[in-house]
């Protein structure tokens, strides 16, 4: 019904994409003051700057406020099930390495119900960007404890305060074999956010970016103290990691040179509860990328397939 146009490649050549091409055009339905807007806009900018054809990009998500993100993209999108964005994203990429894949997930979606997929997607290290919108709370379902909720924070499931010290997504992520890109950033520093997501997008492999995200409605206490006191952060800089302009850097009093190939020191920074690291903690350009294996045999012709199938049958013939 829809034949391949002969001049299709030509057409691509002539296209130039603006920010609008990456937005869905409609209303973006997050609360005012929500950090998700900043993340969305940054993704639009990174895509625009990379001039990825919108039809070649797929935004995949689970369920949550953050997981609404694909609906606000002008690309293809897959707004699936709670906790299951990653297997779907991996599946998309498995036989379509040509697609540019983004995953939007939340702290509940990724670290709670999605914990299994999280570890195993990191292990597969398929080329995609995982953006964790971490607001330290369940937003969409209205304020329940998430794995990153601070101990003592009052939520609807723990009205007398969350019971446990929060999980540290960075130390767990770094602990996964074949992990290849680990970064942390905040939604309210646009230049740093841009540089980090851009680096994540350019990296070949699974780029895990934890974004500390404002949710003024349900978890103001999660980011407010950090917004008010940048001294709580330590900015990790490196030519192999991210670098930002001086005016941005000046916001942070603690800036440190950190080589992202140094796993153990990445682990050390990740563990530090006093000085929260921002920037790229770890990067390994040489990790195995699973779609290099899973996409083998793509494009085999029907003749070749028939021959292969015949050979298979031969084994059972008389």
């Amino acid at each position: 019904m829809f034949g391949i146009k002969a001049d299709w490649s030509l057409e691509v050549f002539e296209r130039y994409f603006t920010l609008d091409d990456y937005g869905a055009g409609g209303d973006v339905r997050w609360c005012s003051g929500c950090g998700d807007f900043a993340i969305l806009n940054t993704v639009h900018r990174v895509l625009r700057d990379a001039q990825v054809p919108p039809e070649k990009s797929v935004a995949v998500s689970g369920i949550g406020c953050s997981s609404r993100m694909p609906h606000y993209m002008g690309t293809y999108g897959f707004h699936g099930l709670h906790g299951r964005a990653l297997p779907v994203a991996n599946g998309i990429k498995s036989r379509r390495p040509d697609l540019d894949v983004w995953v939007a997930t939340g702290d509940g979606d990724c670290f709670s119900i999605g914990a299994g997929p999280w570890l195993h997607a990191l292990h597969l290290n398929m080329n995609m960007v995982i953006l964790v919108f971490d607001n330290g709370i369940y937003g969409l379902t209205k304020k329940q404890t998430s794995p990153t909720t601070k101990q003592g924070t009052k939520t609807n499931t723990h009205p007398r305060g969350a019971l446990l010290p929060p999980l540290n997504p960075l130390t767990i992520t770094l602990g996964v074999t074949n992990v290849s890109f680990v970064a942390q950033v905040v939604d309210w520093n646009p230049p740093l956010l841009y540089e980090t997501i851009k680096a994540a997008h350019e990296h070949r492999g699974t780029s895990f970016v934890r974004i500390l995200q404002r949710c003024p409605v349900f978890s103001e206490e999660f980011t407010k103290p950090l917004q008010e006191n940048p001294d709580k952060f330590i900015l990790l800089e490196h030519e192999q990691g991210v670098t930002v302009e001086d005016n941005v850097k000046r916001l942070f009093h603690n800036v440190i040179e950190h080589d992202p190939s140094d796993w153990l020191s990445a682990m050390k920074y990740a563990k530090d509860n006093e000085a929260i690291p921002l920037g790229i903690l770890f990067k390994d350009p040489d990790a195995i990328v699973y779609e290099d294996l899973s996409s083998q045999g793509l494009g085999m012709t029907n003749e070749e397939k028939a021959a292969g199938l015949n050979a298979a049958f031969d084994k059972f013939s008389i």
Partner: protein
Amino acid sequence: MNDHTTHSQEKPQQLDEHIVEIVSDSGEGAQKCGQTFGIIGGKMGNGIWTVEIIPAEIQPPARTPAGGSGNRVRVGSKIMTNMGNEADLVVGFNEQVLYARIANGAYKKGTIVLLENKWATDPQEKIRDQYAFAIKEFRDNGLIVHELAIEEECLKIVKNARKGKNMFVLGMLCRIYNRDTELGLTEIHNTFKHKGEKVVKPNQDLFKVGYQFAKDNLDYFYTIPPYEGAEQELKDIVVTNGNTALGLGVMAAGMEMVSMYPITPATSASHYVADVFNQVGGFVHQAEDEIAAIGFAIGASYAGKTACTITSGPGMALKTEMIGLAVMAEVPLVIVNVQRGGPSTGLPTKVEQADLLSALYGEPGDAPKIVIAAATIPECFEFVIMARKLAEEFRTPVILLTDANLATGVQPWLRPEIKEEWFSPPIDQSPWNKDIPAYDWDDQTGLSQRPIPGQPDGMYVLTGLSHTEHSKVSYNSETNQITSQHRSRKIAALQSTLKAPIIHGVESQEDEGDLLVVAWGSTIGAIEESIDRLNDQGYNVASLHLRFLSPLEPNLKEIFSRYKKVMTVEINYSDATNAPMINEENRRYAQLAHVLRAQFALDIDCWSVVYGHPLQPGMVIEELTQHLDAITA
């Protein structure tokens, strides 16, 4: 060919069929022996049907009833469709492993038992006693026991008889059933060739010695001629089990992705595919669990490469939420459920057909989908091809049900001629027509075409939430009502393209009958054989085997109306009518009976059991006779 393997001068007795079992401790190779014996039969033009005898553990203790491992081979001069009733001849590597088979009703008075005799002189008194006791008991129960010095003979050529005894036994069986020894030697060569000539040779030697041993020591000498037409068919025949057929089907369907998580009895299908998938450019993904496996498959399917996920009961349970998503978002997908005994982990290696209701109704909310069931090993192959096509045309997940019986049973079947139309076409990457929404539902049929990522202007966001034709989230009442209708109507639309099922056991469609047996899945052979025998006995009975469960095949109501009684025969649980506490207000029906009753509001009866083994015609005939006698009384 050596002298001692040339055919004997005496004339073998001609048989129509025989059922042969080889049973050993796990690890002694009786399975391999039985399989090879079956394959030789297949290649000689016999009809065969094999059923694996599977122990409960990987390495169960030696000499225990729980440990019995082996194979049952039904071999005959007609196409075989089921495992038959009691065995005619059994080779036992020890006496204990036969006990579980006896408990299963596998043997009858007159079954010939060829038994390893070394236990009679075992250093342990306990073993000697067990052996003596068993021999007596077997004989008392009418089995014809021959005690044979199998191990002793083997030790003449190999040091460790545990490895090799099975090939000796294969040789014995090949003599007894007058098999082509060349075929036997070739199969042995194929089995061991990757281990080198130093392994092939002794095994072939054992085979030859076994052959001679049987000739010298046993009077049994049979021949089972090929079935009619076998000769010309033979060149087009393949011999496989159902899981291999399934794997071949995946490749023939042009699917490039099997995303799975290991689970018995489904896994061997994926093993097979993993082995050869590269020949057709495909890839097996072993996910971290069944949810991720189907999620991955859905991802690949969404991206244009309709994928397949293969699993069994507990795995199906885990996929429930994802199946609901695939229904709601209309993602083409093939889900194969190789059914095993349930509920829960249940009977991992045993056969049951008890996942029909969960396939149909398992997901919260209204989740119509296509559900089909293979009845035979070749259908395991063909239905995957059909499933992929249906999934794409009807933009829906398709559940294909097979079972442990089909999975491990070996049968010869016609090698199909490969058609390129089976393969999926290359994915469309041309621009999408902007005016066509992502779900351009046809009002009449509910069908729509879908954009594939990469197609310019086709961009949409798939969602499991209620959505409009543009795939925009919508909580609007009308939208939800109408889109629910579309999803339901698709299934009805498929029904309108199906043919009415063929009835077995009656000459013409117009015949009225006393009893119609309705069934599905791997029971077809046992049931149709029973129907034939009953009709031979003068009863008026027919059967109908459904392949489509959702939608149902058309015309059933009219067909049912032609019979005095309609009942299903199934391998799943139903309450017996005469059981304590049970009455017509609470009787729980077999699963297909339930479905048919709900659809047609007809009082369809059922008989079903959960013994974990395939139906035997004997049991079916016994049960149906009662119903028939009641009807005609």
